Structures are given as C-alpha cells and as structure tokens.
C-alpha cells in the first residue's frame, strides 16, 4: 500500500501527499481537531494523548506529538472531540479542570482504559503518570477517574487488518512491513534506513533536533516479532513487543522488574516503546538494560543473511555505540525466567514516576547458607553504557549478604565506575547511592519487615 490507511473518529481515511514523518498531532490539528494539544512535543506531558486501537489489540493511550503519522497506518485513532466517555462529565463535576489545557489528554488517557481497570489510588496514579497537570494538584482528577472508569462504554471498533505500507512523500520513504521477510529484505536494500518501532526516542529527535532521514523502516507492524514466546524456561521478547506487553507478560511473576516497569516512563510511552528498542538505542541509563543484564539476558541480532546471539552486556560497546552492523537489527531478547524473577531493582530519580534514573541498580544475588554464591549486578546511570559491576560482584562472593557483608562490594564499586556529574545527580551522589543500594538490597533480602521503600506497592 502506498498510502496511509487509518480510521479517525470512526471514519476511514486514506492519507497521501503528507510527509510520513509528520507527527500525528500536527496532522490532527491541521485537520481542525485542535482539542488535542501540544504541551512539550517530546512525549513527557500527555497533553497530546489520543486513544489508538489496532487490529487484534485493545485500545491504548498514545502520545500523538512524537508519533509519525505513518505509524498510525492500520489504526483507529480517537480524539477528545469524538470520545464518548463518562470521564468528561466526571471531570466537570469534580472540578477536575482549571486552565483546561492538559484536560483533553487526561480525558483520553482515562477513555483508553478498559471498564474493568482497577480504580485504587495507586493504579490511578500509574494510569495518569504520563499526564502532567500544573493547576489542580491532581486530587479532583483522581476522584473523577475513580468514578468514571467503571461506567466506560465499549471501546471503538478495532479496525480491520491492513497490509504493509511503503510510501514516499516530501522526499521521505517510509515502510511498515508486515512480515519479517519483508522487513529483512527492506533493510538489506536500505541498510542505512532508520529502524523505528514506537518512535518514542526517534520521534523526539525529529521534534527537538529536527532530525531527518531519507528512509525509515518500522518494525512495529511485523506480526511475528510482536509476540512474547514462553517455553517455561526462557521468555523470548520479539523486536516489536512493547513495554506494556512485556509488563503484562511478567505481571505477578517477576516482582522486582514489574515494579521497575511500573515506574518506567508513563503508559503512553510504554504502549508505544519497545523493549528491544530500549536496548537498541543504547541509552547509558536505559533503566531496563541493567535489569535484563542482571537477569542473564541474551540478545539476538539478525540480518537478511543470518543471525547471532550474544550476552546483552556485550551489546553495549561505548556511549552511542552498539554491536550492530548496518543491515542488522535487534530481533529478540531471550530472558531466563529464573533470572527475571530473582532480580531486584532500585531506581533512584528526582521524581518517582516517569523520570529518568540518576542511578538504576539491578541485583541478582544467589545465596548459599546465607553467603553469596553467585552475583549478577548491573547499573544504569553509572557509566557510558549500562554495565555490570564486576569488581563488586567478585567482592561479594562468599560474603554474608548483610549491611556489613556488602562493605567490600561497596568499596569495589570505585573500581567499576567513575560516574559523571550531570543535571540528574553529581558523581559523588551516584557513587554513594550505588553503594547504599547494596545495603538496601541486603536488608530487603534479610529482613523483609524493615521498611525500605517510599514508592509503589512495595511501600505499602
């Protein structure tokens, strides 16, 4: 197909002649649907939230500001003007809007939830973690949401399946292959094309750095890569699997990683961004890579001519440099259940929700008779890549896992890391907290009755 096929507020639309990298938000507003607002153009405030339903999937709230319209190919997009949901009346009744500029996004975040979504305070805060309001202090919004969710009408129809997209407009070629063969073929033809999935990172390169590329290939629509396979031993996460899908797959099984994912961005970003994308973009913090490294994950790199598997920590070579050649793509992650369930995570940031870590620590510590017999410990925010704390791991072996027993490992951290000072934290703070997190992890392991957390369900 050489034009974008989407459904907008119930009406089918065929879109050509606009650059495929035009952000959905800009296109909507150009169509006169100005209810959807631009607050930041980087996916951090939620004012641009729309509800998106794809074939075979439930509705999801997404940030229209960093979503190239080509990624809406095959989707049913609902905007605030057309949403029919009791949250609208509830927000009026509870005085949940003041200036009203964030309100359309909040309406759509709630409207995208299923009627059986939980309405306890924590769940509502999580649901709204991607929507900023500067006026109300959130109280009346939370109250309105608690009232309205269960009365939600049935969501808009899922659109029919559409085929792949290969369009060129305004000098930009954008392909959304539907099969892996198609994808691999496209990449082999255009090894320098920019691969994108949810565009939660590349989208803001475009809006903020005015990033341009001649060719984009989306992996998001590749059916076979959007599933999670579970053989009971290992979880295989395909390249198109979103953070939200991953969260659902580990729910109730891997408490440490689940809590990390709860605080990972907001729902809109988790519904668009992919686990493999968070690896492939090589962020020095990344939040998820340290947890996956500690869990013993391996990454599968593929190309039209073959594939290879390597330990995740070896994928990250240096800042902005990963072990991926032109024409190769991150095909999947393999995560052993044993490691995934054992990992405990410690994310430290200025704000609990939807913030980037100053320090992110993941511990996978095995004890034998109270002493450490194996340790996989990885950090984000401490070096130019997510990185294992090898010296600290070695120093832990044979030690009792207690606040006193981890002292050697804390001392060894200075051999593992020389962190930077930046806007999130100073080098001194990072090193100090990284050490303190060994103490916290040991306490949590040794005496679960001691309160150690302020955020999330773990605090309750």
């Amino acid at each position, binding site marked *: 197909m050489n034009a974008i096929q989407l459904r907008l507020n119930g009406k089918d639309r065929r879109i050509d002649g606009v650059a495929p990298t035009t952000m959905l938000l800009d296109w909507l507003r150009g169509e006169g649907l100005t209810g959807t607002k631009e607050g930041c153009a980087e996916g951090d405030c939620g004012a641009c939230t729309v509800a998106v339903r794809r074939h075979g999937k439930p509705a999801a709230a997404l940030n229209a500001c960093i979503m190239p319209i080509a990624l809406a190919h095959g989707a049913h997009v609902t905007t605030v003007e057309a949403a029919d949901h009791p949250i609208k009346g509830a927000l009026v009744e509870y005085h949940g809007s003041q200036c009203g500029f964030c*309100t359309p996004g909040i309406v759509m975040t709630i409207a995208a939830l299923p009627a059986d979504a939980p309405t306890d305070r924590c769940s509502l805060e999580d649901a709204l973690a991607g929507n900023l309001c500067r006026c109300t202090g959130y109280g009346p919004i939370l109250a309105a949401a608690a009232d309205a969710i269960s009365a939600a009408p049935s969501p808009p129809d899922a659109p029919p399946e559409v085929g792949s997209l290969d369009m060129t407009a305004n000098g930009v070629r954008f392909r959304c292959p539907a099969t892996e063969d198609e994808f691999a073929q496209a990449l082999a033809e255009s090894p320098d094309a920019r691969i994108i999935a949810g565009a939660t990172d590349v989208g803001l390169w475009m809006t903020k750095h005015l990033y341009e590329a001649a060719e984009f290939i989306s992996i998001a629509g590749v059916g076979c890569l959007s599933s999670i396979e579970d053989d009971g031993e290992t979880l295989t996460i395909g390249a198109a699997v979103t953070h939200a899908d991953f969260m659902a797959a580990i729910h109730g099984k891997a408490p440490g990683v689940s809590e990390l994912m709860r605080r990972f961005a907001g729902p809109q970003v988790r519904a668009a961004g992919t686990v493999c994308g968070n690896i492939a973009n090589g962020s020095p913090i990344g939040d998820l890579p340290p947890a996956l490294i500690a869990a013993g994950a391996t990454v599968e790199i593929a190309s039209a001519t073959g594939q290879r598997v390597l330990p995740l920590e070896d994928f990250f070579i240096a800042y902005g440099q990963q072990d991926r050649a032109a024409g190769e793509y991150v095909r999947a992650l393999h995560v052993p259940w044993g490691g995934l369930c054992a990992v405990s995570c410690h994310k430290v940031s200025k704000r609990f929700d939807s913030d980037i870590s100053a320090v992110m620590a993941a511990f996978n510590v095995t004890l034998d008779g109270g002493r450490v017999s194996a340790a996989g410990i990885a950090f984000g925010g401490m070096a130019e890549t997510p990185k294992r704390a090898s010296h600290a791991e070695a120093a832990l072996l044979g030690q009792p896992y207690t606040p006193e027993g981890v002292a050697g490992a804390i001392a060894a951290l200075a051999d593992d890391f020389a962190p930077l000072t930046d806007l999130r934290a100073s080098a001194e703070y990072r090193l100090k907290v990284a050490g303190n997190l060994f103490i916290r992890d040991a306490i949590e392991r040794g005496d679960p009755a001691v309160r150690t957390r302020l955020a999330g369900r773990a605090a309750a």
Partner: protein
Amino acid sequence: MDEAFPAPPATVEARRDSPSPPPPRSHGESHKPHRHDSAHKHVSGTATYTDDVPEPPGTLHLQIAYAPLARGRIEGTLAAVRAVPGVVAILDGTTVPGENNIGPVRHDEPLFAFAGGSAQIEYHGQPLFAVVATTRDAARRAAHAFKPSATHAQTPVITIADAIAAGTTVEEPYRMAKGDAAAAIAAAPRRVSGTMDIGGQEHFSLEGNVALALPGEDDDVHVYSSNQHPSECQEVVARVLGVPAHAVTIEVRRLGGGFGGKETQGNLAAAAAALAAKALGKPVKCRFDRDDDFIISGKRHEFLIEYEAGFDEAGTLLGVRFVQHARCGWSLDLSRGICDRAMFHADNAYAIPALEVISHRWRTNTCSNTAFRGFGGPQGMVGIERVLEHVAHDLGADPLAVRQRNLYRPSQPARVRTTHYGMVVEDAVIDRIVDDLVVSSDYLARREAIAADNATSPIIKRGIALTPVKFGISFTTTFLNQAGALVHVYKDGSVMLNHGGIEMGQGVYVKVAQVAADAFGLPLSAVKITATRTDKVPNTSATAASSGADMNGMAAQNACETIRDRLVAFMAKREGCAAEAVAFADGHVHTPGKSVPFAEVVHAAYLARISLSASGYYATPKIHWDRERAHGRPFYYFAYGAAVTEAAIDTLTGEARLLRADILHDAGRSLNPAVDLGQIEGGYVQGAGWLMCEELVWSPDGRLATHAPATYKIPCASDRPMDMRVAIWGPGQNRELTVKRSKAVGEPPLMLAISAHQAIGAAIASVRNDFHQLDAPATPERILAALDG
C-alpha cells in the same frame, strides 16, 4: 498496610469528606461552588486557546533565533538562514520601525539583539532575530541554520556567588527595618545564624508562549496572545511598531496556565508576530517550542538568604536580620517588585520586635527572572520559616510551639503588630487558624507517634511540620491597584460582561460573572463572559498579585450598579414607588406592586431611551507606600492559611514522599468555594514541586541543562500527598470591604507547601544532632547531603 501509608483511596475520599466550606449565605450566585465556566469545553476539546484560533489562509510562522552563548559578542551573516526553503523574511534589530525594545519597566531588553551583522549577548537564549517562513518547521530549521562567523566570548556571570564576586546588579540594594535588629540580636540570650539556598522554578504552564497577529488597515494590528497583561502587551507592541496604542488590540480569551510566566514573558511572541504581520501584510503566528520556551523565558528568582536571629529561652524572637540575595538575570523585568515582596514577607506571620531585611538584586547572564505565583513572597517566607526551624532546634523544642509563641495576634498592642514596613496587621486570624488546624490534623499525637515509629524504623524516617502563611494582598506598586469593566445589557435581558481580568484557570471569569449575576438578580447563565480585550477595557493591570477577582469583581459590580441604578430610577418612576423599594432577584425586578421579568424591564427601559451599557472602575482604597522611607500600607489586607505536612525520607537514597497534608485556608467569605479549593490544593502541590523535585540546573557556561519535562520534573499524580485534607476556614470573613467580603486566593496557598520542606527537615533532624543544611529544592541528592553533611 501500616499507619505510615494509609489506604490509597482514603485521599480521594478525604478530599470529598473534608470539612465543607461554609454553606451559601445568600440566595444569589455568589458564594456557591459553581463549576468553571469553561469546564464542559475543557473536557470536550472545544475551549479555544490562542493556538487553536483558526489560522487565516496565508498565515506565516515565526521562529525566534536565540543566542548560542551566555555572554559575548558574535558576528555573522544571515545568508544561510535566508537560503532555507520556505523562508519569507528575517527580522532583526535593523528592521524594527519603532523602538527595538520590549523591557516592561525599564527599557533594557532589545527585542532583537542582532543588528547589522553582530550582537552583544547577555544570556544563552537571548532573542537574536526572527525568521518568518511558510511553515513552522521551515522557520525552525532556518533559525537553527544560523552559525556565527566569529564569537568573542566573555566569562559569564551565572550564579549568585559569581554576581557577588563581580558586583553586578540590576539595581541598588534596598532595606526595610523595624527597631535595631543588630543590637537586639547581640543582646539576646541565644542566637542562631545560617544561610539557605532556594532554587528557582520554571512555570511550565502546559500551554507555552504563543501569539497570532493579524494585520489591519492603517497602523492597526490585532494580536491573539497568551498573556496575563494585555494592556502592557499593547503598549510594548505599539512601542516596537512606533504606532499609537489605539492601533493595537490584544485579545485573550484564556490561557493554558500562566502562574506569572505570562505577565511579561508573553510580550516577545506578541511583539515579534505583530512586527512581522505589519511588515509583510500577512497573518503571522509565533508559537514557542517547549525547549525554546524554557531557554528563552524567565523563571522564579533563585535566592540565597543569610540570616541571624536572637531569641530567649522560651523561643520568643527578639531580633532577626536577613540579607536576601536574588538572582535577577540579565535585565530588570519585574525584579524590583519581586525582591520587594520577598522583603515584605520576611516576617511571614510573626511579630518580630526588631527585624532588618537587606535585599541585593544581582545581575547575571541568565534568563531574566520574572513573576511566579507568590512574586518573591515565597522566598522571603522560606527564610523566616528556616529561622523558626533553627530556633526550635537550638532549644530542643517543637517548632510548632516556637511558631505559636511568635504569631501575630489581634490581642497584641498595635506597635507589636506593626510590620518592618510600618503597616499594622489589623486582621490577624492566623492564631485561630493554627489552633484549629492543630486539632483537626491531630498534630500533637501524630508527632509523638512519628517519633516512636522512627525509633524502630532504621531506614525510612518520618517528619511532621506545621507552617503558617500570611500573604499581603495588593500590588505593592500602588498605582496598579485599579481595574475596569464593561457591561452591556441587551434588549432581551442578556448580559455581556467584560473586564481586565485574564482567565488562566483560576476561575476569575466565573467568579466575576457570579458577582455580575447577583447585581441584577439573574441566574449565572444570563451572563455571557467575553474575551479580555484592550479595546473593550483599557489601561488594565496584569492579572497578577492574586488581584483578579478582587479588583475586576469590584469594577464589574460598579458597572452593573450603574446600569441597575438607571433601571431603578426608571422603575421607581414608572411604578410610582421609592427607589429603595425596587429590588432585583430571581430574574425579576420587584416593586411593591408587582414583579416584572428582568427582560421586560430592560426592554421597556430601552424604549424609554435609557442607556443599558456602562463601564465600571475600581481603585483599591486605603493603600499607600513610600518607597523612599520603606514605610506605609502597601497591602489592603492579608490572606492567611496553615498546613501540616507529614513526609517520609529514605536515609539510604535521600528520596522523599509526602504522606499527608492537612490544610486550613482563609478565603474570606469565598466567592466560589469549589474554585477556591482548587486554587488551594493546586497551589500546595505546585509549591511542593518548587521545594522538592523541580530543579533548574545551569551548566558552568550558562546553559540551562533542564529545559524540557524530560529533565525538569514538575509533580505528577503520585507526588500529591497520599492523604490530602483541604478545607476553607469556616469563620473566614474579610474585615475590609472587598467584593462580597471574599479574599484573594491565587498565590497564598503555594506557600502552604513550605510545611512539606520543613517536614522533610524534621525527618532529617530525627537522625542527626546538629542543625541540618537542607537547601531547596529538597531533591534526593540534597536530602542525602543534609543527612550526611
């Protein structure tokens, strides 16, 4: 769940069940919890903000190119900019027909620093020139295409310490004093001293700066602007264009948040767009990208406060001295008023026998700091609350007891109740509010329980604190305390209301409409609220200083009463009754003989050739201020409130969380309790953001490193205290003749969040003996430093 972490739904319930505002005491529309007039449009996406105004065909887009370094001189050509496809025009300092300056008070801010191939740069982000292009994307790409051919960088003055060392100021220091503070401190039995750094704050209204300018005939230009001060915007646009003010109309229906950030900072987009629109004869829109907005526009002032205090063994303050150092940025902007207000609030709610405040206004090569909710008051208040905290620590006393001992009380002799600027506090009710809150929040029992719990919790520590707020209401620049309104009654009895107030979410439109409806005895639905425009009501003051409803409500009431008096005279004559016997209620005009529907009376009055339109005016009474002597009555009255916050900290990471907040706030006789509760809750959370997670970080070379929500973190839903109980103080009644005895409520609640910072301080104090040095914002890093330092 243990008691530290109450069941999650409790907060939402508590809010609904919190002590209700006083029941309506009138049969009219005032004092009722009417919803925001635009609420139904907010939720459906049909409320029109400036960027939603349909763009006329041919609209061009303007992008500001800004300085790439903090200080120095650059040279270059604009050829590369001009070559970008889609570029229509470039405007720099040489293309301004009027004055190339948009400084609001002092003319010290060039609209465009770049002129004739070079620019002298005073901060990173300073507007250099504007690019106008066929699309916003093209304009942005073109602005980014500018690369100086030569850069002569100078060492920038970035921090307050830099400015003190360099001696750079935006104006002279200023002093206010009562008694001989230095002598009182020297003679006091006990003394404390210290310093505190207080960070700034980015407004982050969800709607950024934006303007759309439409050229008209002759010199005319019509500008839709997201702006808290349309009259000043009009003046600045006229100045830049070199045309009379009557040629410029500024129209503002609503803002997507202001918080002070659009009091002067909206003028850049408006002036640039208007200039381009007139130069090119085309509609021109200028909408800032969020990051550009952060980098270009001013913020809340950072402060460094030095203090010393003398007191007795019982905790009675005998003398306090403050030296307030404010980072004003590269130009004056509103820094004089802001720094003055910080000084006015250096006593907060405390009667201090000898108080001296010295204020230094430092000039730095950073964005020009500007108005932000509280306008310096919050920084001044943080200073004195730190003193009280330090005094209590020194005495080993509960800070609440020390605070209560020093409060202004109505029973004190007038000289005791006289502030350091010579104003007698006549309306002190803070002692009663604090007493009520101590009971309703169960402060004393909770404080004991927290101490006991801390003894058994090695990692998580809790703290609790109560702080009061006394906030002066009025512009301290006396002449600004005036307002106008325009009211039309149409033949069908419908009413059109216009005034100088700007609706930015705070509900000024609905509040003033309630007042207008009551003036005619009409339902609220009979009053049409219309966009604020400089051609309807002239020479208005900014919607700022919490004054919007106070002043515009009175002006609107005045206009309505003018029309009503005409109708009264008409009806008295027609019905042969005394004027006093004519009453307006329930949509009717009542005379002893009959009740006639309002619309019928209006129509009859029209046929009798009676004017049904009037302007209204209000000037705040009683106030005067002698800045030379630093003496007078700058405020009509004070607004009061108090909050108790309970916080928990993680002693391993420095993370903090607000567990519970109890608020009792004085809104006088609230015009609209629902709107006022929203201001109180929202103000608290915004204040907590300022003092906790919102951190502005500049690099040593003067670049703002936190220029987007990815890096600058305002509170999100989970940052609201887990349990929040907010109430309007029931006995509230303004002793002054304000509009329906209400009190201003926009700014004061922000300062209730000082209790959050103090609660964190109390938690830190539970694990260390000497007094902590917790600066603001209390980020995890600062908390950990305060624990370990």
